[in-house]
């Protein structure tokens, strides 16, 4: 069925795969309880209809310890089982936890803008807009923030989505194993240009990723202060583009709300940085 092998049901990495498994297992566990309940609803209502002289009428039957025991136990046991799944799943799939892999993660800094995505590759010294390029089979360490209102970074076939929030950073590790181009989007309403805030995520072989980064480096535009200010102007449905150089410390400056200082020849080192953890959490 073509309806069932798309989006989060067709994951291309370990995170999405694990989440799909939990989704399907939990659904199956609950359906095992719910389908009999639905059948019983129809069966009881029909059998005990007023016109049915064969059904016994128990006008005062309003309590049964045994039945009460069973009706509390069924949902309680189900929820204990699912609660276990939730507990283990939350820990195994905690977005900020590094993935188990022998391969060194690639770092990507993600910034949501009105209304497009900026991806900075700090180690490669390049940046892209609305175009995410990641090596296959390699964990990617995303650090995310927003230069505007809240958004959510989401590539359905990769798995876990996460908020991008102004003056705060979130952390997300994902990995994609299957080469190809995948749809990415903002999954949190952010204003008039929101539906155009989509991007393509390209999963390429690791060697090709290295080649791509090297060939992009030093080519084309530079993402410096003025270019960044230009980029922050609201626009939607923006075509993918690549910057061959990025002002150092741009991401940290965005998080700190000090992008104005990038107009100086040398970017000032940022100070004071909020984290995504709530106080005490």
């Amino acid at each position, binding site marked *: 069925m073509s*309806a069932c092998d*798309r*989006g*989060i049901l067709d994951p291309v990495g370990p995170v999405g795969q694990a*989440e*799909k498994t*939990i*989704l399907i297992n*939990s*659904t199956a566990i*609950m*359906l095992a309880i719910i389908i009999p*309940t639905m059948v019983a*609803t129809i069966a*009881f*209502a029909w059998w*005990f209809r007023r016109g049915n002289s064969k*059904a016994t*009428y128990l*006008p005062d*039957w309003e*309590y049964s310890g045994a*039945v*009460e025991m069973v*009706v*509390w136990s*069924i*949902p309680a046991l189900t*929820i204990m089982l*699912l*609660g276990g799944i*939730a507990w283990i*799943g*939350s*820990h195994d*799939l*905690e*977005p900020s*936890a590094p993935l188990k892999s022998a391969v060194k993660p690639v770092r990507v800094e993600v910034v949501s803008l009105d209304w497009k995505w900026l991806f900075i590759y700090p180690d490669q010294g390049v940046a892209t807009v609305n175009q995410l390029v990641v090596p296959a089979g390699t964990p990617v360490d995303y650090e995310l923030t927003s230069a505007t209102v809240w958004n*959510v970074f*989401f590539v*359905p076939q990769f798995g*876990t*989505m996460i*908020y991008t*929030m*102004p*003056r705060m950073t979130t952390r997300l590790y994902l990995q994609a194993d299957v080469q190809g181009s995948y*749809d990415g989007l903002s999954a949190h*309403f*952010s*204003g*008039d*240009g*929101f*539906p155009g805030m989509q991007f393509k995520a390209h999963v390429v072989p690791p060697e090709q990723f290295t080649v791509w980064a090297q060939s992009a480096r030093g080519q084309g535009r530079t993402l410096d202060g003025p270019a960044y200010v230009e980029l922050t102007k609201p626009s939607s449905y923006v075509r993918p583009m690549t910057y061959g150089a990025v002002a150092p410390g741009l991401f940290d400056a965005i998080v700190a*709300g000090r992008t104005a200082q990038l107009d100086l020849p040398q970017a000032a080192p940022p100070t004071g940085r909020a984290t*995504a*953890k709530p106080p005490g*959490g």
Partner: protein
Amino acid sequence: MLGKLTWDAIPFDEPIPLLTSAVVILAILGIAAWVWRKGWWPYVWNEYITSTDHKHIGIMYIVLALLMLARGFADAIMMRAQQSLAIGASQGYLPPEHYNQIFSAHGTIMIFFVAMPFVIGFMNFVVPLQLGVRDVAFPTMNNVSFWLTASGALLVNLSLFIGEFARTGWLAFPPLSELEFSPGVGVDYYLVALQISGVGTVLTAVNFVTTILKTRAPGMSYMRMPIFCWTSLASNLLILAAFPVLTVSLALLMLDRYLGFHFFTNDGGGNSMLYMNLIWIWGHPEVYILVLPAFGIFSEVAATFSGKPLFGYRSMVFATLAICIISFMVWLHHFFTMGAGANINAIFGIASMIIGVPTGVKIYNWLFTMYGGRVRFTVPMYYLIGFMLTFVLGGLTGVLLAIPPVDFVVHNSLFLVAHFHHVIIGGVVFAIMAGYTYWFPKAFGFMLDERLGKAIFWCWFIGFHLAFMPLYVLGLWGGTRRMQHISDPTWAPWLNVALVGAVIIGLGIALTVVQLLYSIKTRDQRRDITGDPWDGRTLEWLTLSPPPHYNFAVLPDVHGEEAYWTRKQTAIKEDRLIDEPDYKPIEMPINSPTGVICAFFASVCGFAVIWHIWWLAILGLIGAFAIFVWYAWQDEHEHVIPVEEVRANARERRRIRMEHLHELSQST
């Protein structure tokens, strides 16, 4: 002089809001003129607008809810049409700035001005009757509550014609709702309207908690209260605890917008995460504020139409209170994807699932209420069975969303949209329609048309599934909500099915109007003179339909859990009523224009605050306060109904009941 208000505020260049406003204004004027010509103004003024009778206030709430349902549904069908049209190269017929207002208004109106007034309307009408008392604890305040709610509804609808509504979604998350990103008056309309109606809602809760705790018929101990009273108590306790949080969150946002504070702004040390937490500390209990009374309605329906007491009454009470408490401990599940950490996510996820346990118990208790019963397939029973079949699946997707790793891929998606419509339509709306059909004869003395009622049920049932099942699929594809434009053309067939579903629901709403008009027209053939048309079990069926202002000539003595049923069975067995009691004159609260005048000034004040017309805001505030001072200075708050009138009415009532009783005795 007029603050930010200029002629530009009126959308002369946008035909849709302009035309709608014109039609609505003409309709209101037309109805007002018609009532005037018929000479009904004194009746409407005395019996409804200024009434302190809980039954009439309840009816006004439900009328308000029905009107707002039409508005909220108009928004819904426009959204569905836009999403079916704006696919691929087409941008549809609604630009983003208009579409974004529509989905924000749809959510705000459906929750605050449809679901809430319906539920509060039923509580108003039913709770004092079921408790066997004459009115709520604070009858004039009850009237004030209603009018403040209506004032909020008025302001939200005024934004259609003057200015704009919020474009931020129904919870107005900052920083999007801050001045920096939403400089217009839309968010101010949202904030002010909800603040005013919020006061009304809190006053309602004060009123009902007091009524249920302090004024019950003699002998009605807590464990003898009908389950609808229990769920109403739980719901009102939740309002008391949760709505002040809403008031504070909105007030902080107002301080940001009006006085340049920095609670939730990007700069100045603001933190928008705080708002997210605060608003959901209100927002999650709000779900249960709506659904608990819905469960109460279904419990009454299940018992009545199965001809049996509710199975596991004590379990039901316990489950209700468990939901009431746990619902305050789950708010974080609305933002698992914020990165709070594994322990926090897991704990809140499990707490959310635990709510599934008492809810599941309730489903089984309704099931076993039918077991061994004589089930009558009336319209309310259709809704109960439809609800049980629908709600379990909505619960399933809810538990899925409560599992953090699953939420990580469906958070904020169309899957979520499908889920909450699944439980709100399948739970709350079905209950509202069941309650509307069930208590209509009590309110007006005649039954609603049964055939049309069943047709309406099928429209909701089929329409709901067609409208929202496709959204589950699109959500699993990764589709998110609030999209003014859809890039992927393969979504089209699913969105078109959803549109068809919405049209079918619309047909159901239209048929509800037809059913009402047709039933009024043929009311003489569908009169219920017995006061007990469904063979009911609770005290509201003891009195006349419609009940007299004072409800009961003498407050009923309650023995056992099913006060009226026990009494009725004894009477049938002995073929006689209880001995005629000693009638006494009855003191009832007099009418008061306090509510409507207060709400008038509150609306003026609110409008002025929205448009920064400060002198008018101060005048409005003074006016709203002055009416309370005036009210406090009144000496007379009650009038006495003479004993002769009470006795005459009661004797007539006894005669009818006696006849009805003979019929029942002969038939058994």
